[in-house]
């Protein structure tokens, strides 16, 4: 046996490598930079890294390669689009994360202990979230471009582990936050066990761990499909868990609620892009020829997910939980894009992911602003009269909600339209009908929040809208502008997506 030295195309991998480098530097910063300087150093390092990475993505945007990392990753149009989306969403999320007020001062200190009080007083910060975020982002960047199961699995863990941790770092309601971390972690590990088991069967089925190899077996396999189907099912469980589809959704409301809000926003937006990115690639390339087997099941799950998310969201009293259920419903809509299995579906999904991600971060940015003396106020009843207190914040939140509801002139509408039409085009009429129906249901609770904000008188309970910091303001402005511009004139982005969105196999 001879060993040939591996060849890596560093240019193509550079977006991820830059992120990893940035993360490692961040770890070093933790060790060597004085406490006072740490936060600002970390923030600029992180943002710099992300911007650099984005620039690098732009540089390679015309590259197509299947051998960038010995066949472990694929660089193609969708890869570039998804990576860019993840990076943009991450940048505005990091702006939110940079607001010091969301994270515990000292994770190891017991809630309510003297130690906690002291570290709060001394202004201690868990600046480790920056490198952790970068690690998570690099996992997300890798997830949709992986082209073998090993890389996919590693990327999955890499994006998950930092999120598990960060979910537990909330500054207030720390018990709930830690509970969120525990739940997220246990269920995440549970689902990744299924994922792994599915990988095993796919490997058994095709004697290969690469997408190309599995695809070959799917197209022209000699045995029966049992192993393929089981492997596919289990792999799908892992992916559906990440996107929060019913019945693998149960973690998301609890985790969304418990986690620090900037992390919730980041997780809700960026993870969805990554997970759906991977899912799209897998279903559009690897399993495309077995469509008969997964399409009905996935359609069923999509329908149930849409309806479940919309229905349960109606009954929510907590804004974060409501957004969580809404994100479940959106996962259902996005599944319609996967089911479509045509170019229009791919384009629509990518557009939707970006538009939804940006709006989600914006919405959670607003959530961070509504406070009372003990922190964020997420009880919807206390959002009454927000429009009076802070019209601009309320208006932008209403804008995000309308985008979620898919009202025209917001990005959400274009997204919904494109994804439903793609699904319809592929014959998934049931999904479209359910989608339309659940959109109607969903409109109900979005509007209810708008009513609360604008048409209900505020009660004097100490709720106030914090003046957004510069960075939070930037997040808000960017997301609302993107949401509206994509609603009014989406043509350039759609053209761009259309130009790039072809998976290479």
């Amino acid at each position: 046996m001879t060993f040939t030295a591996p060849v890596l195309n560093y240019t193509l991998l550079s977006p991820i490598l830059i992120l990893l480098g940035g993360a490692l530097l961040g770890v070093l910063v933790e060790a060597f930079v004085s406490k006072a300087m740490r936060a600002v150093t970390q923030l600029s390092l992180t943002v710099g890294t992300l911007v650099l990475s984005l620039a690098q993505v732009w540089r390679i945007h015309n590259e197509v390669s299947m051998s960038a990392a010995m066949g472990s990753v694929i660089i193609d149009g969708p890869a570039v689009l998804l990576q860019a989306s993840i990076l943009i969403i991450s940048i505005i999320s990091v702006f939110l994360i940079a607001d010091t007020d969301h994270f515990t001062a000292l994770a190891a200190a017991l809630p309510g202990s003297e130690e906690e009080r002291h570290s709060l007083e001394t202004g201690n910060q868990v600046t480790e979230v920056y490198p952790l975020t970068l690690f998570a982002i690099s996992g997300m960047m890798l997830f949709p471009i992986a082209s073998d199961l090993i890389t996919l699995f590693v990327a999955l863990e890499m994006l998950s582990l930092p999120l598990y941790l960060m979910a537990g770092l909330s500054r207030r309601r720390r018990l709930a936050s830690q509970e969120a971390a525990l739940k997220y972690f246990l269920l995440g590990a549970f689902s990744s066990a299924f994922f792994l088991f599915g990988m095993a069967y796919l490997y058994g089925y095709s004697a290969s761990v690469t997408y190309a190899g599995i695809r070959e077996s799917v197209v022209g396999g000699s045995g029966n499909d049992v192993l393929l189907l089981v492997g596919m099912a289990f792999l799908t469980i892992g992916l559906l868990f990440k996107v929060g589809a019913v019945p693998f959704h149960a973690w998301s409301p609890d985790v969304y609620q418990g986690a620090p809000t900037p992390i919730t926003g980041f997780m809700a937006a960026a993870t969805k892009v990554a997970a759906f990115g991977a899912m799209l690639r897998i279903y559009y390339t690897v399993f495309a020829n077995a469509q008969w087997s997964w399409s009905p099941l996935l359609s069923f799950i999509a329908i149930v997910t849409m309806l479940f998310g919309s229905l349960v969201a109606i009954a929510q009293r907590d804004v974060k939980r409501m957004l969580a259920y809404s994100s479940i419903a959106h996962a259902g809509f996005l599944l319609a894009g996967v089911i479509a299995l045509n170019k229009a579906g791919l384009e629509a999904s990518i557009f939707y992911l970006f538009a939804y991600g940006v709006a989600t971060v914006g919405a959670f940015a607003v959530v961070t602003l509504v406070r009372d003396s003990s922190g964020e106020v997420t009880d919807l009843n206390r959002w009454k009269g927000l429009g009076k207190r802070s019209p601009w914040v309320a208006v932008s939140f209403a804008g995000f909600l309308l985008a979620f509801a898919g009202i025209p002139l917001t990005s959400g509408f274009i997204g919904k339209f494109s994804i439903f039409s793609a699904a319809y085009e592929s014959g998934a009429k049931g999904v479209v009908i359910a989608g339309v129906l659940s959109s109607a249901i969903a409109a109900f609770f979005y509007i209810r929040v708008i009513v609360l904000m604008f048409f209900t008188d505020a009660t004097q309970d100490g709720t106030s809208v914090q003046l957004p910091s510069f960075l939070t303001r930037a997040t808000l402005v960017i997301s609302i502008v993107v949401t509206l511009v994509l609603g009014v004139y989406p043509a350039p982005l759609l053209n761009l997506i259309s130009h790039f969105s072809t998976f290479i196999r």
Partner: protein
Amino acid sequence: MMTSTSLVYLIALPLAGSAILLLAGRRSDKWGHLLATALSASSFVVGLYQLSLMLGRSTGERPITQKLFEWISVGSFKIDASLMLDQLSICFVLLITGVGTLIHIYSISYMSHDPDRRRFFAFLNLFIAAMLLLVLGDSYLNLYVGWEGVGLASYLLIGFWNQKPAYATASKKAFVMNRVGDMGLSFAIMIAFATMGTVSFSGVKEAVDHTSTAALTGIGIMLLVAATGKSAQFPLQAWLGDAMAGPTPVSALIHAATMVTAGVYLITRSNFIFDAAPTAQLLVVIVGAITLMFGALIGTAKDDIKKALAASTMSQIGYMILGAGLGPVGYAFAIMHLLTHGFFKAGMFLGAGSVMHGMNDEVNMRKYGALRKFMPITFATFGLGYLAILGVPPFAGFYSKDMIIETAFNSGGAKGIILGCVTLLGAGITAFYMTRVMILTFTGKSRWDDEAHPHESPWLMWLPMAILAIGSLTSGYLLSHGDALVNWLSPLFENHAEHAELLSPLVVSGLALAMVAIGIAIAFVKYSRNEVAAVAPTDVSIFTTIARQDLLQDRFNEAVFMQPGQVLTAVLVKTDEAVIDGAVRGVGRIALGSGSALRGVQTGFVRSYAALILIGAVALVAAIWVVTQ
């Protein structure tokens, strides 16, 4: 047909008056009534001028038209706003403007104490304009505009004193019942358009020949429905009594002389339809016969002078309708009775107004009595009208009513006999109740309250009365002399074959006079010889009770239409809220409920979440198991 450019002034003058008075508002209080009267009079003058022109033309060229503008034109539905004046219309034009002007004059004095006199005159002018449009329109749709226009004017005038709730209700009732009739006119127009493709009088007349009898019968019946509404015929007559809520000049003009006769005009105008639709024509006769009895019976029991007169009007119009229903022979007589009735009934109403004027607006005849001495002119004019309506020769009614009775008898077969008897009996009853009115009002002992100071009306009021009284005296003779009216109108109607005479005119007159005499005699026996109670006695026969209640017509309407209607409305309002909106809210509640129920899945326990995932996995595996079976 010749065209004219001046027809429009007939309508435009009073319409302008109405508009000026309404728009100018209080500013025109001082001179408004004068302007209105002047405009009405000038319209009358224009009418006379048109008559003179018409007389100057040969028979075939008498009708003239004026096209104003294209009103509605969609597809084949083309309606021009255009006017037509023919021999029939000119009669009405002169009646309307003539009587109308007299009543304007009368009202100047009658309404002089009313702060809203100007508004009253504006409405009067509006009425004149609308009524003229009704008779001048050259198509059913144009007629319809006037038809509803007079309804509006009638509504406004009945409710002129609408601060009294009962009066307001009366006006509403009149409008709504008229609308029921209007609906009939709508149907007639629709059927006409659907079957003939036109709604103009000339067009329809031409199309009659190639239109099925069924369609014509439909149109005829619907026109009859319209006529019953406007002319207070059975079964839509109930509003007329209440309409007496309006100022008395209004009752005289609208609810006696002109508007209520519009139904007769409509049927006469549509003679070509009815002639071709015997069933409809028969119905017309039946309606006329019923109403004439109906009105007469009600008239016997009324103590309110205006209501008694209103009942009489109803009954007299019944005669006209009956006459119009008798076909080609009857049209002219119907119109003649219409015109004479216009004189004597308007005169009597004005007389009643004069009485009320002198009696503090008291209308209960039981509180009159012996007014002859205090109001001699009124007594005289009223008396002339009385004689006219009774058909005493040579008063107007003698000519016109006897013609109808005669034609009824001569209409052939059992129908002729029944109709003849009905008309005769009606004449008798008419004599009875009119005599009753006379006796109660003008003779006997005074039964007034102490506040009443009866006095004769000023000249502005009695002058019109006098003129109308002269009309009552002479019009019958003038119109029937040498069959003047019949010949004048005959070009409009089909030539008719004479029926074999059942009874000669002389016999009919004799019978009629005998009936009248009987009626008068009974009335004298009953009212002149006995003391009349100032308060209506309650221990009266069941017939009187029923007659006092308009033969239970209101009760019937109340029980059959209004109460079920109110129940229906209430039920529907509740249904809308509970069932339809409830269904919508129910859907919302189901969504919310299922949302809350599904929330239960989210127990908060990690293990149940894991179980959910596991169940999902089992389901997937089971699906695969089934698929690979």
